């Protein structure tokens, strides 16, 4: 893409069309351009492993584990089975997890700006984490979504500048946004084989519920519906978390104990 090519237009035999975001494809560009496939895959493996080590270091420290307990918890985390699958398939979820951990840590420290920017980075790279904006509203961090929006706009402009507008329009067409289908519509948002969404190995719960409801698991749940579903909970959650219960037992005092026999 840096040389003017369009990865979304490349049709390789035996492979699915890429459905990753242009920013994600752009981040892979140096690996693809500078190294052979074998070297690039190993570099990506060690990048993932470094991200995993950083995740565990941050999480163990944040949870307050020290000494032997920290080693045990770190080892338990390291042996978590999905991590091996992620490394085996060269996937990106470890990197996404790192961004989420950074977001959670920033939220704990009341740094809404950093939390919003971490979520913006996750959204630029993987798109669907943008739905977590609803969670930010749910925990009453209304400034963080503004930082997310700013980060997405800034990162989007940077991607357009480096990728070129033609790549962006291809991606927009790919996900159905130009047809009004991707975000607010009911059509598939990705050019993947519809069978993948109702594949038994697809563990997306929304697809399962959708299949149980109307047998259309081949069409993904639009992002807007997911966000609205989480936002709908906002009306109930603040009251459950912050409001005092209706009947609060009181400790009897001398003034109240005048009701004798």
């Amino acid at each position, binding site marked *: 893409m840096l040389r003017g090519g369009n990865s979304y237009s490349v049709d390789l035999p035996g492979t699915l069309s890429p459905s990753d975001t242009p920013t994600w494809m752009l981040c892979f560009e140096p690996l693809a351009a500078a190294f052979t496939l074998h070297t690039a895959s190993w570099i990506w493996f060690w990048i993932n492993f470094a991200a995993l080590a950083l995740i565990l270091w941050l999480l163990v420290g944040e949870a307050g584990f020290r000494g032997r307990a920290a080693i045990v918890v770190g080892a338990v985390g390291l042996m978590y089975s*999905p*991590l091996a699958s992620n490394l085996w*398939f060269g996937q990106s979820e470890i990197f996404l997890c790192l961004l989420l*951990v950074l977001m959670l840590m920033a939220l704990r420290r009341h740094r809404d700006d950093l939390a919003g920017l971490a979520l913006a980075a996750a959204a630029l790279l993987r798109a669907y984490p943008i739905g977590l904006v609803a969670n930010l509203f749910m925990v009453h961090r209304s400034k963080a979504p503004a930082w997310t929006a700013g980060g997405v706009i800034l990162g989007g402009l940077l991607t357009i500048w480096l990728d070129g507008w033609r790549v962006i329009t291809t991606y927009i067409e790919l996900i159905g946004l130009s047809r009004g289908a991707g975000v607010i519509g009911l059509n598939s948002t*990705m050019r993947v084989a519809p069978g993948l969404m109702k594949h038994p190995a*697809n563990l*997306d719960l929304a697809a399962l519920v959708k299949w149980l409801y109307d047998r259309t698991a081949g069409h*993904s749940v639009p992002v807007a519906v997911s966000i609205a579903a989480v936002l709908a909970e906002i009306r109930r959650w603040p009251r459950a978390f912050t409001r005092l219960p209706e009947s609060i037992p009181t400790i*009897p005092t001398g003034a109240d104990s005048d009701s004798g026999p």
Partner: protein
Amino acid sequence: MTLSLISPLSWYFYFCCFLPLIVGIAAGWRRGDLPPITLYAITAAYLIGTLLPSYGHPLSPLMSAAIANLPAQHPHIDHALTEREFLQLMLTWIAAYSFATAARKRRRHTIDRQSSTLRGDPRSAIGWLTSWRPWRISPPWPCGSTRH
């Protein structure tokens, strides 16, 4: 957990994002305020992932070999084993739900206890306001002790 809802596709390696949950549950267990169901559910999910691993895990070849060597008349075992990832997801969801609801109850209990303590303390403003009954005229001494 939200990510497993909002992603159109969610393969097994998407469970990597549950790592903060696992460490958080470990921290809760260390504090001693973890509901038993949370501990059992997350332990079961972890063990399923470890003992019946998927592709990429070092023990996966053993698992594949065991399935391949199953007698032909027991295909149902193969089908059951392929659902282990879904079972792991369900158990993780149960652990997360019980963990979150227990934290909510604990927080409400803390607020409840603080409020009742404040109400019971006549020196605090809240205690004075909540214990003041203008329609009741009480003697300055404890009433209970004078009636015995």
